[in-house]
């Protein structure tokens, strides 16, 4: 008995979970069954610490085509087309091996989207690393960016946007969240539920090897720590060429109506895809591991069932159509093998050459894991560190230049130029030219805008309010290009939920997400939870990452974030009430503390509508959300992008009660920096601040007034390559 206990603990199951498995099976599990249970009952697969919270999220909406529970969510974009999208984390693999970790993160999210029958058309990434003065962070950044580029570029899907933040708490546990957006004819889409007793189960794509064994349970569901190099074998190896063939193969099969259902093999491999397909369809499944094409001949049944080899898909096919399906696989030079059958047993049975080596009730395997209540405990004050890099004596000019050069704010051209952003010929707004990426959809006769956001530092200050802000920032980014939100996906990256402070952060963040989405009327159509993101020094900043897809009627009517022409008036729209709480300036001064002011969600939504309508009507020359670094940084970005200076006076903000430095560098939701015709801005109710022109960024703010030559500001803002490549990489 002691030996058995040791084994299940090694696989990440608690004693009481093991006892529950014995109770549900009516006997002790054998090795195959124990391996499969340990994966499907892991945090990564069972969401056992988060599922109860996720019930708070609004998931209904008239444009929702598929909601949570499918491989990805999908919304209707008109003319018989739907857009499918999802964001997913690949944090722990990337922290152990950044190139392959990030590459297979992209590969995995692509499969989730084409599993629905949608052709992937865009990728966005949300990345978090430690500060760039750490050699480890530079190594992780370089590897992750190369990995994302390697996979996305090779498979021919445009990487159109994303964000990168650098903060000390991500030093050991970087975050790599990848989002994929796909387009499908709604009638061609399929669900993941297995159906039709007697139908064949066909495994397509790559062969199965020993890579990625234990990825979901050992790597993704525990904290990182010393000796993680030993976990490298749990990281999968990606092959975008194989995925490209499987993608085309699956889309051809679905286009010909040859598949009953389709599911990708991700975390927990065959175990999870077979189990989840059976559970969703209320049926049983028999899998014969002897028929699975292997890379190594001597693999044990449990290894075959838990392997996380990449680029594999599982399909349910009517028996008469199997030959046609295999012929399409042959055409694309990718694997296709009938490995099992749909049954009415309600059991997942694993066979080897006809001999049963595992036999478990589907319900127990997939839904039998106990769900835990969190035990939240609000921490007292600021629980993360503070490190000052600016002295209180710094002038406003020095502060502006330091903010523009901060890696989290500086231009990310170094990264996004390593990604193909134009393949597919849909990209109307490329990275950094507007607040959201804009992709045209000639099929549907309109366009979509996509944005991904989440500022972990602000969520650390106030998990509820910080998460509300992430949703609002996404909505504001969409408004800047004239888009109206259709749906949202999210990835909740948090530390160890068994610790009260993290539990409290998670609980508050989910409430903030739910309330903001409800207030904006944006349904949550899918998402992912990544817990146990901790290093030896403690947890990461709580980091909910929000991805939003919006619709705009005419791709020719969008606005860029850069000023457009000399003499245009500059104005501020929205209920912007900046403070230094949680700001980049507060970080650089080393004075971060708990607490953020409340956002007025209703007022922000109203401002979004004003900006959106004005952009759609072609009335604004530029629109830019005021975000990290406050108004001064937003002005500098709009000016640098245009190669034009600006002269503004922030007195109107000071009249609202802002201190000069709050007006300059304070952050908060609800601010839109717009430019255009003066009369139009007045009609829109914008607060006029000044005008475009000159060769400097001149901002009057009482005793903190700033004047920085444009070229100097641009030098600071473009300093990321020098900071990222200081090792001579």
């Amino acid at each position, binding site marked *: 008995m002691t030996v058995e206990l040791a084994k299940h603990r090694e696989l990440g199951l608690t004693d009481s979970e093991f006892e529950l498995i014995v109770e549900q099976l009516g006997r002790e599990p054998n090795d195959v069954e124990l391996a499969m249970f340990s994966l499907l009952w892991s945090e990564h697969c069972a969401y056992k610490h988060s599922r109860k919270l996720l019930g708070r999220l609004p998931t209904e909406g008239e444009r929702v085509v598929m909601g949570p529970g499918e491989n990805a969510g999908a919304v209707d974009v008109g003319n018989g087309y739907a857009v499918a999208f999802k964001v997913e984390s690949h944090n722990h693999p990337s922290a152990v091996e950044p190139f392959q970790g990030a590459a297979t993160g992209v590969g995995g999210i692509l499969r989730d989207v084409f599993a629905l029958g949608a052709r992937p058309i865009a990728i966005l990434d949300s990345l978090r690393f430690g500060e760039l003065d750490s050699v480890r962070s530079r190594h992780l950044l370089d590897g992750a960016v190369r990995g994302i580029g390697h996979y996305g*570029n090779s498979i*021919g899907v445009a990487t159109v946007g994303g964000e990168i933040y650098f903060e000390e708490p991500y030093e050991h546990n970087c975050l790599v969240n990848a989002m994929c957006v796909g387009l499908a004819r709604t009638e061609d889409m399929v669900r993941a539920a297995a159906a039709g007793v007697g139908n064949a189960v066909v495994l397509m794509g790559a062969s199965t090897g020993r890579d990625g064994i234990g990825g979901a349970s050992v790597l993704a569901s525990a904290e990182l720590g010393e000796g993680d190099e030993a976990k490298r074998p749990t990281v999968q190896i990606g092959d975008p060429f194989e995925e490209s063939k499987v993608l085309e193969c699956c889309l051809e099969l679905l286009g010909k109506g040859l598949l009953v259902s389709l599911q990708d093999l991700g975390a927990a491999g065959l175990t999870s895809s077979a189990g989840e397909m059976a559970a969703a369809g209320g049926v049983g499944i028999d899998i014969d591991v002897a028929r699975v094409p292997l890379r190594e001949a001597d693999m044990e049944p449990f290894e075959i069932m838990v392997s996380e080899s990449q680029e594999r898909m599982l399909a349910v096919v009517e028996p008469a159509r199997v030959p046609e399906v295999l012929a399409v696989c042959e055409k694309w030079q990718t694997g296709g093998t009938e490995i099992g059958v749909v049954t009415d047993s309600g059991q997942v049975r694993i066979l080897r050459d006809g001999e049963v080596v595992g036999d478990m009730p589907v319900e127990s395997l997939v839904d039998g894991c106990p769900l835990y209540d969190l035990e939240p405990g609000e921490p007292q004050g600021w629980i993360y560190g503070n490190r000052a890099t600016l002295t209180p004596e710094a002038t406003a000019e020095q502060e502006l230049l330091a903010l523009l050069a901060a890696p989290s704010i500086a231009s990310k051209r170094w990264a996004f130029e390593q990604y*193909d952003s*134009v*393949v597919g*010929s849909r*990209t109307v707004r490329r990275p950094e030219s507007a607040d959201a990426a804009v992709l*045209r959809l000639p099929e549907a006769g309109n366009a979509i805008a996509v944005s991904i956001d989440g500022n972990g530092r602000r969520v650390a200050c106030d998990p509820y309010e910080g998460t509300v802000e992430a949703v609002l920032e996404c909505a504001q980014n969409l408004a800047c290009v004239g888009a109206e939100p259709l749906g949202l996906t999210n990835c909740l990256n948090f530390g160890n939920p068994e610790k009260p402070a993290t539990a409290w952060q998670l609980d508050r963040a989910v409430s903030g997400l739910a309330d903001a989405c409800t207030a904006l009327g944006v349904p949550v159509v899918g998402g992912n939870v990544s817990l146990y993101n901790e290093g030896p020094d403690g947890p990461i900043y709580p980091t909910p990452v929000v991805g939003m897809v919006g619709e705009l009627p005419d*791709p020719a009517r969008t606005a860029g974030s850069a000023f457009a022409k000399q003499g245009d008036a500059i104005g501020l729209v929205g209920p912007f009430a900046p403070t230094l709480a949680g700001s980049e300036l507060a970080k650089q001064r080393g004075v971060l503390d708990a607490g953020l002011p409340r956002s007025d969600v209703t007022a922000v939504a109203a401002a979004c509508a004003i900006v959106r309508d004005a952009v759609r009507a072609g009335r604004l020359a530029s629109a830019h959300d005021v975000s990290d670094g406050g108004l001064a940084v937003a002005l500098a970005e709009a000016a640098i992008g245009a190669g034009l200076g600006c002269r503004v006076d922030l007195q109107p903000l000071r009249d609202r009660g802002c201190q000069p430095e709050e007006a300059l560098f304070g952050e908060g939701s609800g601010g839109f920096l717009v430019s255009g015709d003066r009369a139009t801005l007045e009609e829109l109710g914008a607060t006029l601040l000044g005008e475009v022109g000159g060769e400097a960024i001149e901002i009057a703010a009482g005793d903190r007034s700033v004047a920085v030559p444009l070229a100097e500001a641009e030098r600071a803002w473009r300093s990321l390559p020098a900071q990222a490549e200081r090792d001579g990489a």
Partner: protein
Amino acid sequence: MIWGVVQFPGSCDERDALHACEVASGEARLIWHEERELGGVDAVVIPGGFSYGDYLRAGAIARFSPAMEAVAGFAAAGGPVLGICNGFQVLCEAGLLPGALLRNEELRFICRQVELVDAGGGRLSIPAKHGEGRYHAPEDALDRLEANGQVAYRYATDQNFNGSARDIAGVSNEAGNVLGLMPHPEHAVDPLTGSTDGLRVFEAVAAAGARA
């Protein structure tokens, strides 16, 4: 005019190339890499991507495909052929164009809108995106290319980001009916997505076809 776009496993830009051919002039169809006949097309495009995963070396496997044998015959008979990015690499590997494409000087994949200058001095703004686009040929071969007027496109001043010899972005064969370039004209056929300058590349190929 009917265009054929060769599709290998791992091609990425074949749908964009099809669309660009249609916008440029007339009809376009895909040619599967296993086909030995080109089906009576008037011009052929070898599109961008990572044919056969670019394993071994970019374009090294694609040159042995049945469709490429047919393309070689088509080119020898004077048929117009355009190779874009990976297609350019394939044509160099197949010996239909001189030179070779090496890894970018900075050893990174770069995606950027670049300014090109054509043989007549006209400027084009077209996206480039590749990790192995540094044009290389021996010095005497480069001299011959220039003397024969085979340098079809050069990167404009300060635009040669990959370190190509003599700023060369695209070359043609001696007969002038086979053209290869690293930047992507098929992504530049609509003002909404950046520019329409790419159409001029397709028109030049179509004109070569008309002369043949």
